[in-house]
């Protein structure tokens, strides 16, 4: 018991510190964005509607995940809620791709003649977020399978906790990026 508690604590700390380094990664990219923007020659454009849909989706997925964790805490099965979160997560990925399509339709390109740093930045940042999110999807998948196999108990559902922390972080990161693009 003592040992599991310790293990849970260290696992969570590992994750938190890992999150700090991800934050530094995006802080680096967004400060590059600010510095570059201050230099002028910056193309302004509308954020695609699909990104707003992404935002709604990721908030919804986080809400589901909260319920999943609540179930686990109460000793009920969290499998379905986890699968639900996973499904919305996949939809988020889809909405991102649609968002890129919208951008291209608007004439905002990643690269080539007529591309602008503002466009390149938005692709680079969303792509990086999406890569991290795919990690989250894999984690959700594994947690769902383990939950189905009954590996989590009322007293120990570390996997769900860790996945939750990471997933909520990804949601907050997206919100930050979304607000950053809209207002910065």
């Amino acid at each position, binding site marked *: 018991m003592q040992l599991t508690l310790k293990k849970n604590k260290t696992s969570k700390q590992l994750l938190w510190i890992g999150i700090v*380094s991800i934050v530094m990664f995006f802080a680096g990219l967004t400060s590059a964005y600010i510095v570059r923007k201050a230099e002028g020659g910056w193309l302004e454009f509308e954020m695609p509607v699909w990104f707003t849909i992404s935002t709604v989706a990721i908030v919804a997925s986080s809400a589901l995940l909260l319920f999943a964790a609540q179930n686990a805490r109460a000793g009920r099965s969290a499998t379905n809620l986890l699968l639900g979160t996973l499904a919305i997560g996949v939809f988020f990925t889809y909405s991102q791709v649609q968002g890129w399509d919208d951008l291209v339709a608007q004439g905002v390109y990643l690269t080539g003649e007529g591309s602008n740093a503002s466009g390149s930045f938005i692709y680079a940042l969303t792509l990086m977020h999406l890569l991290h999110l795919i990690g989250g999807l894999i984690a959700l998948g594994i947690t769902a399978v383990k939950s189905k196999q009954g590996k989590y108990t009322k007293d120990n559902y570390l996997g769900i906790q860790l996945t939750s922390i990471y997933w909520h972080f990804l949601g907050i990161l997206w919100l930050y990026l979304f607000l950053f693009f809209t207002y910065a």
Partner: protein
Amino acid sequence: MSEHHKETFLTKYIFSLDHKMIAKQFLITGMFMGVVGMTMSILFRLQLSNPGESFAVLEFFLGEKWAPGGVLDPNMYLSLVTMHGTILVFWVLTAGLTGTFANFLIPLQIGARDMASGFMNMLSYWFFFAATLVLMYSLFVESGPAAAGWTIYPPLSALPQAIPGSGLGQDLWLIAITLFVVSSLLGGLNYIVTILNLRTKGMSMSRLPLTIWALLIVAILGVLSFPVLLSCALLLIFDRSFGTSFYLSDIIINGEALHNTGGSPILFEHLFWFLGHPEVYIILLPALGIVSEVISVNSRKPIFGYKAMVGALIVIAFLSFVVWGHHMFITGMDPFLGSVFTFTTLLIAIPSAVKVFNYLATLWRANIRFTPAMLFAIAFVSTFITGGLTGLILGDSALDINIHDTYFVVGHFHIVMGVSAIYGMLAGVYHWFPKMYGRMMNKKLGYFHFWVTFISAYGVFFPMHFLGLAGLPRRYYTNSAFPMFDGLTDINEVITFFAIIGGLVQLLFIFNFFYSIFKGTKASENPWKSNTLEWTTPVERIHGNWPGEIPSVERWPYDYSKPGADEDFIPQNVPLKEGETEH
């Protein structure tokens, strides 16, 4: 922990989860890369001090393509300089130094059975190993390895048309560095969590050995700065592979005007040095930690001003995040910003001075035992002083105008970061070798290795200051294009002479290392009569470190020559006597 796993060769030596084995993997890979990097420097130095001359060794190593007729190709010169810097900074003195001693010492000195996550620890090594393979492979590609300097400033690093090394070689460099950063992050996370959570009973933060303090701070620096290097490299990868314009603007290369506009190479420099400067402290701090420990043990005296030592480490680490602009004084940055960076940079001199004076105070009225490790530690103090002082010149923006990117810089950073950190690393190897392999390294070879190294290191790097003050730029294939440098030939020859001697004697060290692993005399459990916990473990190294319970800690690690004690050391697990106060 007591259950016995069946160990096979594969799980014991290759995919080991044991922190001690992983430490050795880092050490040996680091040593191998050290030889590679050092050989490169000797090769390019040879040509630099003998312009136009032909050398059989050059042809032997580089072949007809890169050394036609035994004369080094200028592109290859830059590739060698770049790979030399990359290898020594990242592979030897980041992974080789921190990877070895963090893995080896953290669990042993804080009283833990292993790292928080043995699996992540193993992964950390294997990412490092993969990075090594990629980097080594890049030495053999058709267009040559990366050649834009270890700082890979674009546009040079972004355009294969500008220099052949910026083709496939640079791609591989970037892949290698990405793998490397992942490795460092996995390691760093583990170090932090282990130190914060797995300390044995009684091991409060104020009883941590200074090595552990240094390694903790290094891990925090790494977790905060390496991701920024990654973001910096990512945008470069985009520019190189997808044609974006983050760093590129208004360029004509090979007569072709590129479409890119609006990008800024200066942006790259900001992102790069935001990592780059903390990186030099990532290199230096573990050495400071090791040296503090070695000096105290062999002075038979507590380290002077433990709290100030920890405080100085923290202040240095903090300041290292706000000084990156001192690498950019002459990029046309806002002069006011330049002033700010001068101010913050020169402030670092204060905690550094405190550390030096504390070392000197530790040596005062000591009872010094001159192990090879102790000699390297003393030499570290010497180079740390020398290199730190020249930093006062470079940190001053007005003075930097005329010595930026000259050999003065090369002299400065080799002494303060290169040589010092190598000394720290060698001190560490000599000191902990008995715990790593259960045998002693040969002392006579150790002394010989030390003195030749000490003399040749200063012989190589001190004269470089004069080259710099004569105005000689770094990264020059030859000085012969400018008559004003004609008088510098003799300095250059002295440097190359000592470089060769200094390089050869490292081979002797490596010989001593491997000889002693197999044939060294058997070590006792605590050969240096040291206080820290690692010396309470048995000579036969076992998974889990202590056969029985982990000892609990009763005192700080520096009770050497304490009045009233029977011996001149009191291990940390010995309870305070009746009426005895903790330092």
